[in-house]
């Protein structure tokens, strides 16, 4: 049965955006608006323990005292937080034991996205925790992971099954007081993923989550928490697409990573949310707080992101290098075409001795796209022999786009070694003509040149993601050179 809202969405769906479709299933949606009652409703709906409700309420009360950050170099219409619905869930028909019991329409949606769960289960060595709107529908490979002692489940399940772990680490890297959107997320987060890798365990497969926003006007507030115990390793993939719609949608996620002694987390993102149309109408607001804490000695956190979607992106995956000899890495490709805006970068906070960080940022602007790299490298007083290497390159396609770089460097220990390189260039007419004269079309030439430009980042991605990332770049930049 179609609701009136879904009818409107159906009408709004256009052909341009490949993943622009809306699944026609019955949904339970909370009316728009946010007050203490909504926070209590969400918590109750999820049968949460008292301490978590208290955490949410504390965050909500703090959020009320905050105002939206305005230092970001992006422009967008004011968000009316009372016009957003803070909870939407597909109505569960019964408890699901296997994929066969999942709503066939939902499975079909995943098929359109190119991630057939049932096939993946058999063919690929990847476990998928699929987040459909706000409730996790299906989780695969749970048994294999369980054998290794790895916990990979939805956040709601983690609260039920591993409350002590959640309680210990939730908000320990990104406190509810951190910023406006982190506070909002802490108050109303719907679901997300939880990963726990026990001591001296190498996670036997790459963990992957597909996020998808499906209900009209429903802000999605994901919460991800990954804990890597001493001597463990995990590679986590996050890929996103969202269906087309006219209204702007807010997405304010929080991701927290924790590595203890000798542990490593590799976190890769390919973000392909609806960027709005050519005139800047519609599209996702992506205001995300991602941060990792290298708590242990010799631990490592590596962020790799390919950001091709969203109307407005505000995102700084960061590392706190607390343990001695710990390593933080940030590899980023961001593309803005048409009216897209992105203000993205990283923070590397060096606290421990002999800590090392690497920042490779590649920005591509086309159309009227505006892009800012904003990064901070901070060497604290006791961080003896800290090292940082930063490389921030921008490439411009056409003459109506912009690239901006704001690197902040704060060194409080004289033994630090810092290197910073930055370039901005146009895709050269000479490069395009050279490719053309060898038989390559301009479109192929642009994609080849841009892929070459991004190579240092793409090679950090897991193989199947790298292929997807290259395809996304081609789609995003289609028609960007006249």
């Amino acid at each position, binding site marked *: 049965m179609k609701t009136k809202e879904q009818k409107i969405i159906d009408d709004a769906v256009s052909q341009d955006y490949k993943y622009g479709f809306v699944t026609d299933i019955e949904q339970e949606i909370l009316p728009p608006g946010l007050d203490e009652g909504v926070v209590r409703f969400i918590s109750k709906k999820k049968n949460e323990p008292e301490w978590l409700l208290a955490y949410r309420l504390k965050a909500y009360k703090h959020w009320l005292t905050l105002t939206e950050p305005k230092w970001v170099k992006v422009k967008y219409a004011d968000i009316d937080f009372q016009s957003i619905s803070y909870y939407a869930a597909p109505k569960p028909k019964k408890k699901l034991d296997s994929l066969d019991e999942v709503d066939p329409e939902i499975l079909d949606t995943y098929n359109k996205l190119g991630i057939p769960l049932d096939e993946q289960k058999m063919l690929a060595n990847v476990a998928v925790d699929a987040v459909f709107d706000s409730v996790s529908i299906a989780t695969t490979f749970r048994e294999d992971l369980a054998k290794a002692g790895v916990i990979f489940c939805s956040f709601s399940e983690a609260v039920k099954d591993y409350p002590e772990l959640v309680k210990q680490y939730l908000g320990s890297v990104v406190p509810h007081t951190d910023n406006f959107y982190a506070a909002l997320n802490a108050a109303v987060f719907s679901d997300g993923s939880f990963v726990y890798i026990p001591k001296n365990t190498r996670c036997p497969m790459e963990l992957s989550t597909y996020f998808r926003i499906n209900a009209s006007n429903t802000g999605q507030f994901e919460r991800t928490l990954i804990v890597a115990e001493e001597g463990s390793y995990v590679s986590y993939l996050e890929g996103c697409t969202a269906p087309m719609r006219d209204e702007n949608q807010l997405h304010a996620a929080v991701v927290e990573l924790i590595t203890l002694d000798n542990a490593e987390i590799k976190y890769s993102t390919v973000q392909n949310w609806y960027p709005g149309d050519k005139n800047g109408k519609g599209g996702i607001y992506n205001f995300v707080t991602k941060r990792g804490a290298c708590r242990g000695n010799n631990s490592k956190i590596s962020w790799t992101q390919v950001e091709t979607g969203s109307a407005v992106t505000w995102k700084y995956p960061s590392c706190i290098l607390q343990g001695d000899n710990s390593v933080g890495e940030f590899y980023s490709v961001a593309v803005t075409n048409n009216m897209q805006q992105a203000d993205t970068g990283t923070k590397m906070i060096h606290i421990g001795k002999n800590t090392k960080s690497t920042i490779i940022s590649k920005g591509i602007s086309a159309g009227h796209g505006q892009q800012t790299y904003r990064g901070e490298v901070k060497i604290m007083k006791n961080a003896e022999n800290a090292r940082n290497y930063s490389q921030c390159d921008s490439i411009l396609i056409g003459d109506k786009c912009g690239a901006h770089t704001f690197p902040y460097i704060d060194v409080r220990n004289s033994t630090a070694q810092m290197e910073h390189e930055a370039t901005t260039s146009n895709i*050269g*007419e*000479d*490069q395009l*003509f*050279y*490719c*053309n*004269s*060898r*038989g*390559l*079309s*301009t479109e*192929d030439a642009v994609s*080849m*040149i841009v*892929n*070459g*430009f*991004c*190579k*240092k980042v793409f090679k950090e991605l897991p193989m199947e993601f790298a292929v997807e990332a290259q395809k996304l770049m081609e789609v995003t930049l289609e028609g960007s050179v006249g």
Partner: protein
Amino acid sequence: MLEIKNLHAKVEEKEILKGISLSVKPGELHVIMGPNGAGKSTLANVLAGRDKFEVTQGEIQFNGQSLIEMLPEHRAGEGMFLSFQYPVAIPGVNNMYFLKAAVNAVRKYRGESELDAVTFLKMIREKLKVVELDDSFIHRPVNEGFSGGEKKRNEILQMISLEPKLAILDETDSGLDIDALRVIAEGINNYRNNDRAFILITHYQRMLNYMQPDFIHVLMDGKIVKSGPKELAHELEEKGYSWI
């Protein structure tokens, strides 16, 4: 094969070519000489279809087709090849990947099947021997960090891989040491046949010591002012362009 009639072209409102006529038949080797700024490179770029040069008058026929409105990538498909005077670098793009994409784009245009990786690699290893380069060369990024000689050898490698009907070599001999010059000249000589034509743009007579051109043309101030047999090149070398 190539018929140029009364060709006029300008760049940024400045007229560079002022009425060039030239006829090239299959199998012929034409040499175009002339002082700096005469329009030699402009002619090469106009033939290859560079957008920033605007043809204002005249006609270019290539194998019976008009070239003026044809995209550069289609000209490549039709069998036109330009060896650049200053080949541009494409950072991060593997030379072999580039070459394979180019070869297959041209093959596709010509209605031929695309080469798979194995066949291509085998083919390219043979061609590498011709330009006396080793395997590691094709795994480097296109023209990035190449020496002057390597860049020119790479252009010749592309030429013999793309199998054009007409190759235009824009100062391929400049900046080369004597060994590289010999390698490139031999590459061209071995590649000459009755169906394939060459236009060689050069400042110097020295490359001609290794090859047998059919015609020498002198380009000055946007026009061909003198044409003649090979001996004309010697004369120019001795007497300079002011002699004409």
